[in-house]
């Protein structure tokens, strides 16, 4: 009995064993702290503060020649800069990865940076540049790459913005297939929204309602008000195209409530104007 007890104790101790705490250099500690503070600012919605600390983290990572940290912080900085509407700064941040072929970034980081650049260019309305960067990311991304759905969604949006609704629908369907699992739910919602928009653009508003409603359900679960507002707006347009004025008005009133809660003055004004018609 005592042997069994000793064996269990040894097994428990072995299971509790952990790697020693990594105590890096002071610069390493400052890097971790800057990254943690930036992430905290981003979570709290203080994007200017987040940008400041991601910039600081990028500077420290560069001084340490830590390629992975350089890429991660540059990409995060580009995201926050885009949220702040600072597209030029966002591009400059990504240049730390895209314009440094000798830095030895991993393929994953390069794919992330190229995808981010494509998103940034598409968001700025530079469809040609966005197409090129999306193509680069897709070329680098393997068949089951974790960003395959996001890349396909970007390409679908580009096709839709270029007036190729059928191609957009095809790409959005492919993105929906690739967006598997819990981690892929945001991209699944994006794919459904783009599919709905593409069907609407093809003149089939009735078939647009279903994917848009699914996208709204996912976005409500994820709790992203920007996307909820976008879904409601698209649903309103589709309902209006179907001639269902009452449903369109209902979606718009819901959208107005969301935009007011987000303090989005521009969207609120647009929706109010549409509701007054």
């Amino acid at each position, binding site marked *: 009995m005592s042997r069994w007890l000793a064996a269990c104790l040894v097994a428990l101790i072995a*299971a*509790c064993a*952990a*790697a020693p*705490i990594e105590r890096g250099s002071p610069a390493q500690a400052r890097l971790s702290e800057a*990254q943690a503070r930036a*992430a905290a600012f*981003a979570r709290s*919605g203080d*994007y200017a503060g987040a940008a400041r600390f991601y910039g600081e983290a990028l500077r420290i990572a560069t001084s340490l020649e830590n390629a992975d940290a350089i890429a*991660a912080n540059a*990409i*995060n900085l580009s*995201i*926050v800069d*885009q*949220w*702040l*509407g600072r597209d030029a700064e966002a591009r400059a941040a990504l240049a730390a990865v895209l314009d440094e072929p000798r830095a030895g970034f991993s393929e994953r980081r390069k794919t*992330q940076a190229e*995808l*981010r650049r*494509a*998103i*940034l260019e*598409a*968001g*700025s*309305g530079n469809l040609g540049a*966005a197409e090129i960067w999306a193509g680069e990311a897709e070329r680098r991304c393997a068949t089951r790459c974790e*960003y395959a*759905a*996001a*890349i396909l*969604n*970007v390409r679908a*949006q*580009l096709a839709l913005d270029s007036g190729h609704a059928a191609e957009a629908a095809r790409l959005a369907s492919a993105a929906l297939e690739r967006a598997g699992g819990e981690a892929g739910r*945001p*991209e699944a919602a*994006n794919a459904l929204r783009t599919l709905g928009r593409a069907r609407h653009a093809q003149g089939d508003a009735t078939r647009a309602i279903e994917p848009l409603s699914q996208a709204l359900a996912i976005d409500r679960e994820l709790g*992203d008000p*920007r*996307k909820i507002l*976008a879904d409601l707006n698209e649903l309103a347009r589709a309902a209006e195209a179907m001639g269902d004025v009452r449903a369109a008005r209902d979606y718009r009133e819901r959208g107005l409530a969301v935009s007011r809660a*987000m303090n*989005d003055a*521009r*969207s609120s004004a647009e929706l109010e104007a549409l509701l007054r018609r």
Partner: protein
Amino acid sequence: MSVTLPPGRFTRLVLKVNVFLLIALVLVAAFLGMVAYKQGWLVRQSPLHFVTPNALGINKGMPVKLHGFTIGQVSELKLAEAGVDVQLSIVSEYLRRIPQGSYARHAREAGVIGTAVIDIVPGQGTMPLAEGAAIRFEPARGIAEIIDDFRRQAVPAFNEVKQAMSQIGRSGEDLTTILSALRVEVEQLPATHRAVRKLVEQATKATTELNQQAGATLAATERVAHGVDRALPALSEKLSASIDSIDAAAVQLKKTGQEAQATLRNAQPLLDHSESAAREAGDVLSAAKRVWPLSDTFKEATDGMLPIDSFEAQGKGRVR
């Protein structure tokens, strides 16, 4: 006496003479051709003509110009019923550039002096003149006409100058009047001087009186100053007491500051201990997070990356 010529000197003489004549003929023909070319004989000419009552200054061979460019020459002058008929030879190529309604005028290349030419002034028509057409001629103005024109324009100007000069003369009369008036005023200066002296005497008297009044005012001011002098020591004592109070307060404040500093110094180790304790607690927490079975609970969902979301591609990421 006979001269013996060397044998063979005149052999084939006829041939040599013929060659010489042929060369001479060719040279003459070339010269004539060159002259013809230079004179424009080889160029097709179109005639134009005009009639002028007076052909003075117009000669045969005089150049005819359009916009200052030579387009032909005066080819012939004939006496006609109304004066002289002047024939112009215009290079046919340039005739189409002379529209209907054009007229000729006698002009000189550099205004009054310079080579005389016949200048064609283009008209407003759209069709060119026909060959042999008659055009209007405007004779040149002579020196007498130019002088007469100048006189016509200059006389009014001279009249105005003359009128201005006479006004200046009348102003001289006014000046005489002014000088006379000034002389009268100068004559009255002694009387004015006397009046001014009287005024100064009166002013001196007034100043003396003012001085006496000022003395009285000063005495009154002195009395007031005495009053202030009496009140000032009491005020000074009060002010001194206030300053002492402020001084005491400042000393107290300084003492409080020193005490606060000492307190902070004492608290510093405690703060250091707290920081170190917090760091250690963090380390313990980190270790706990890494230990099974808690490691799965605290495992971060991402590698510190913000989500790369294709939704931002719609340009709506700014409104978050």
